[in-house]
């Protein structure tokens, strides 16, 4: 997006500091959708999420003069959002949905996550119950064209425990690097990978069920 404004990041920050409305509008248009998605993974309702996005932009305006570029602008933005959402979560007594409690990370899931995929005992022990099939010639583009399939994916994401959903939103949907995700959510690299693995395993499973059902 910096390209469309012909600005590098320091230039963008300077423009915001000097109150350039055109730049603010463009930056807001570009990032608000991503912020809203992350907010929705952190607070209980869409209405609250929209408020958190507004509060985030106010936080940007309050803090832009002190922005030093130690992290990227996007990381800084997401951090402000997660902090605001956390405050919101406490106020709405939903902190457990945000903090690293067992229910939020799914830490109580242990290795049971893959249990349903493999034969538990007998001669076929450890083999796939239902060996994964090729999904070709399906493509992600075609899958997403189907409204039904999109809602299968979105529902699967919605059902994830809080922190798993945040990690997946940042890593897989927004394409943020793992290092930045750890920085934004203040979690360790290992923790991030475990949460991502659980989230991906569950979403793949839902997608697999949908694709298989619709093949036959």
């Amino acid at each position, binding site marked *: 997006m910096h390209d469309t404004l012909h600005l590098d990041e320091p230039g963008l920050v300077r423009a915001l500091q000097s109150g350039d*409305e055109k730049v603010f509008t463009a930056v807001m248009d570009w990032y608000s*959708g991503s912020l809203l998605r992350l907010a929705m993974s952190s607070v209980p309702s869409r209405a609250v999420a929209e408020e958190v996005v507004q509060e985030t932009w106010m936080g940007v305006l309050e803090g832009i003069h002190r922005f030093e570029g130690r992290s990227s602008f996007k990381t800084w933005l997401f951090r402000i959002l997660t902090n605001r959402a956390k405050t919101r979560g406490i106020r709405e007594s939903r902190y457990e949905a945000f903090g690293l409690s067992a229910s939020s990370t799914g830490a109580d899931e242990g290795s049971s996550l893959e249990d349903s995929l493999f034969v538990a005992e007998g001669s076929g022990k450890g083999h796939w119950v239902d060996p*994964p099939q090729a999904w070709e010639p399906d493509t*992600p583009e075609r899958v997403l064209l189907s409204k039904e399939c999109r809602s299968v*994916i979105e529902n699967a994401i919605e059902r994830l425990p809080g922190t798993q959903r945040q990690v997946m939103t940042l890593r897989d949907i927004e394409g943020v690097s793992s290092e930045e995700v750890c920085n934004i959510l203040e979690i360790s690299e290992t923790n991030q990978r475990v949460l991502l693995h659980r989230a991906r395993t569950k*979403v793949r499973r839902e997608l*697999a069920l949908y694709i298989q059902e619709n093949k036959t």
Partner: protein
Amino acid sequence: MDTNFKHKLLGHMAGNFTCREIAQLVTDYLEGSLTFSERVRFQLHLGLCFACRNYLRQMKFTITTLRQLPVEPVPPHVKEELLQRFRAWKRQSPEPAENPEAD
């Protein structure tokens, strides 16, 4: 390759991963966080196991699909309100030089 034969072969190779372990390690593999030896064992298993190859492909497919989910639409009233707040902020905002807390 005959499934039983394949599993016998995999079973006989010391230190090889089982299908279950492949499913558990798939994210570590994709994230590049396996050790060299684990990576080799992972790929060795994939080379012999069609089901696990498909599982890895399905996982990659899922990730690509997630990356292409459309952006969450932000209602116009939210943007409008923000713009009003921005204008109010601009009217009150001190210049960076006048702000002793800057940097």
